[in-house]
């Protein structure tokens, strides 16, 4: 979004103007959907819609610039994701016979295939916190200070996590390709 364009759009969006809400959605939904569906391939789309509804509830109280809005949006998304995972852990599930599952595609593989896969596949080899930090940095477009604010960690900790994530990715790729590595 152009510099200076955000404030009037936000002001209009806070009154419920659909053109302004649409502008915000177009700008921020792609990274938001990518962030959520990468971590929860099955429920990602529903989670994205729920995040937007939460944004709608709190939009009139929001104050800040575009960066602050982006941080706020991904803070909501992260909390939604945590809530969803907690609820899923508590939820009792009825066992389904394996025979009923034959022939159904693996949803995460489908997402990887649709969204250009290799990077997302590699991302799944990272720990959850490493994947989260990398996604917030690369997909959400936040810097390490903003990621620290969103995740409630110290900036130094975030920088160490992202360093280890990249080292791990390089090691995995190297291993996969059988490339000779110079120490």
């Amino acid at each position, binding site marked *: 979004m152009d510099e200076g364009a955000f404030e009037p759009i936000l002001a209009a*969006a*806070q*009154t*419920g*103007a*659909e053109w302004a*809400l*649409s502008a915000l*959605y*177009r700008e921020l*939904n*792609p*990274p938001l*959907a*990518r962030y959520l569906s990468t971590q929860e391939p099955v429920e990602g*789309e529903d989670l994205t*819609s729920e995040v*937007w*509804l939460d*944004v*709608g*509830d*709190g*939009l*009139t*109280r929001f104050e800040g610039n575009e960066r602050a809005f982006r941080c706020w949006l991904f803070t909501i998304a992260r909390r939604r994701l945590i809530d969803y995972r907690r609820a899923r852990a508590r939820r009792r599930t009825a066992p389904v016979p394996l025979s009923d599952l034959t022939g159904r595609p693996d949803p995460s593989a489908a997402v990887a295939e*649709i*969204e*250009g896969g*290799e*990077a*997302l596949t*590699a*991302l799944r080899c990272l720990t959850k916190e490493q994947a989260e930090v*990398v*996604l917030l*940095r*690369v*997909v959400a*477009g936040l*810097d*390490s200070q903003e990621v620290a604010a969103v995740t409630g960690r110290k900036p130094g900790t975030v*920088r*160490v996590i*992202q*360093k280890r994530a*990249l*080292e791990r*990715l*390089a*090691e*995995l*790729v*190297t*291993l996969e*390709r059988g*490339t000779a*590595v*110079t*120490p």
Partner: protein
Amino acid sequence: MSLSRDFESEMKRLPLDVNTADRLLAGAIGPEDAPPSYAVVANFVTELADTTSSNVDREEEVVAALAIAVRSSQTETSTRRRRSAVPRLKLAAAFAVVALTGTTSLAVAGSLPGAAQDIASTMLAKVGVSVGPNEHAGDHPNVRGQSGGVTVEPASSGKGAEVSELATSTDLTGVEKGAAISTLASGGKSQAGQHGQAATHSAPVPTPNAGGTGTADTASGGASSAGTATANTASDGHSEAGSANSATGQSHRP
């Protein structure tokens, strides 16, 4: 060796400094400029950052729901503000009613202090309510803005001024001056200056002589000598003998 150990042993450490990692993730380092073995990671970052393939098919649906949510939250906010103001208004109105009723009742009963009763009767008379005179005011002032019952004399009059006048104008000096001021200040009760006079009679006991014996005889009216004689008589002369023994340096054991 386990499978995981095999896997770990095959992995090579590819150290990366924190700043380079930060710049790689920010997209500031392209695959060409990346450190050895990190060109692939730079490609990975570029691929991951490209979200153009993400669909916005549900835009209309989501934006419509978003607009409804924003408008309803606006309504809720204004309702919440109105709700929070209502209890305060109710409380203030109730307080005003209680204060007005209470004051009017006291005024009608004539129980307010004098000045307050005057004001209340004046105000109530304007609205056609006749209020009787103040009967229970007691020592409260009847005039607004003044305290009643206490008269303050000017500083130039009174006993203090008299004492001060005497102290500065008298020709007396020393003990006589102090006695005069004290007597005036105390209303004649003070006896200041009288104890400073020389004694008019001598002490009842004369000044002791050097030996002290004479003093004892004199003071006891001769009872001291009599006591010595009585002791000698009662001890068949042993008392005197003891004294003699003692005087000659012999010890005497009873």
